[in-house]
């Protein structure tokens, strides 16, 4: 809830930021992992898939914790998640289309 929680005597509470920093370290670790993968693995569809999977995991943490969606009303969560699942399929489909264009190109 967005209402400000002041203690009854009007004093400001101490910051409660453990989860925020924990999420930050997770994001940093995932990005570092992506960098390592970028330089170690040879180019392949598996590498691409791995990148996309890790990026979706990062997106999950940013949306759920930083944007607080994980703590919102469930209906709103689905309003956001469902269209993005369709978008994910769209990405996959158009990458396959691109490959087909390449194969058919003279």
């Amino acid at each position, binding site marked *: *809830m*967005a*209402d*400000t*929680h*002041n203690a009854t005597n009007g004093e*400001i*509470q101490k*910051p*409660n*930021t453990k989860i*925020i*920093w924990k999420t*930050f370290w997770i*994001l*940093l670790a995932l*990005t570092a992992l*992506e*960098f390592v993968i*970028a*330089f170690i693995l040879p*180019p392949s569809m598996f590498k*691409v898939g791995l*990148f*996309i999977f*890790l*990026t979706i995991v*990062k*997106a999950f943490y*940013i*949306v759920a*914790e*930083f*944007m*607080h969606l994980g703590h*919102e*009303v469930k*209906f*709103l969560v689905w*309003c*956001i998640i469902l*269209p*993005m699942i369709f*978008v994910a399929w*769209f*990405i996959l489909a*158009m*990458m*396959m*289309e*691109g*490959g087909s*264009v*390449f194969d058919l*190109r003279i």
Partner: protein
Amino acid sequence: MATVATEDEKKKGIDWGGGNRPLGGVRYGKLMMWFFLLSDAFTFSALLISYGMIRFSHEAYNPNDSYYIEVTEGGYGINKDQHGPDNVIELTKRGDSTFTVTQKEFESRYDKRLQLAKDKLAQAKTEEEKEKIEMPKKGENYYSSQRYWPIPEKVFDAIPFFHGLKAPLVFVGIMTFILIMSSVTMVLAVEAGHRGDQADVEKWMLWTILGGFAFLGSQAWEWTHFIVGTDYGGALRVMGDGRNLGETIYGAGLAENQYGPVTFANLFFFITGFHGTHVLSGVIINIIIFYNASMGIYARKNDYEMVEKVGLYWHFVDLVWVFVFTFFYLV
């Protein structure tokens, strides 16, 4: 979960009969921000999807393959000075045609050259002779051409103030770190807003604004370096005198670029430019909200939800960058 409008909201006349917390508890301001972000996500997804499709419709360079190439008088062209004096473009002839070499052949040729240099070194007697013998430089089995989609870590390998140093993807990693850090400081500002701590809100908003400006500055440098090009340039085939001629071009524009096909630069400018515009507007909005917070407007209402709504926009900008970074620089 109150569905009854507060006194303030009733005064403003936005009690629409359904209270003002639809969906069982989300306030209209936040809800509308979420739906705006969803629509913006569609726009960015459309751009990234087009990028994916165009990229996969081009050939990708594989150093383990051997490619037919026309070297004399242009063709798709190989700029022999590519990547500076460290690189030695290896070519092999089969009949009348010239081909690039596979990675294995590249390695074996370098090993032979190295062995020759070592033998000469062993035979040299005086110090003078030893110094005259040059150790062969290895370089890499890669060249940029209009035919192949560029490999991002070979294109984005520069850092400001270090001209000539090859540091693949380091600078973009720094940019990603800056943006994620500014997202963290934004969350801390929102959290301070929940506690009603005006001083902390101001502090964390300032850090977020600083991070935003740092990102914009870095992106401006990246664009400049991309447009100006590298020392070695790229090769382009042009028609002239009824023949194919070669030409070395430098930098990237909308009509031609040294790194690869034209669409690579086009998409780079459009997608990162669109994202950069969002960052700029986000920074401006953050400045306005910071000003409001420091004037005590939210403290008076005891309601820092505006900081949260603006925080959503800033996190969205960061989220889009995470995807742009993956699709452009890693895939």
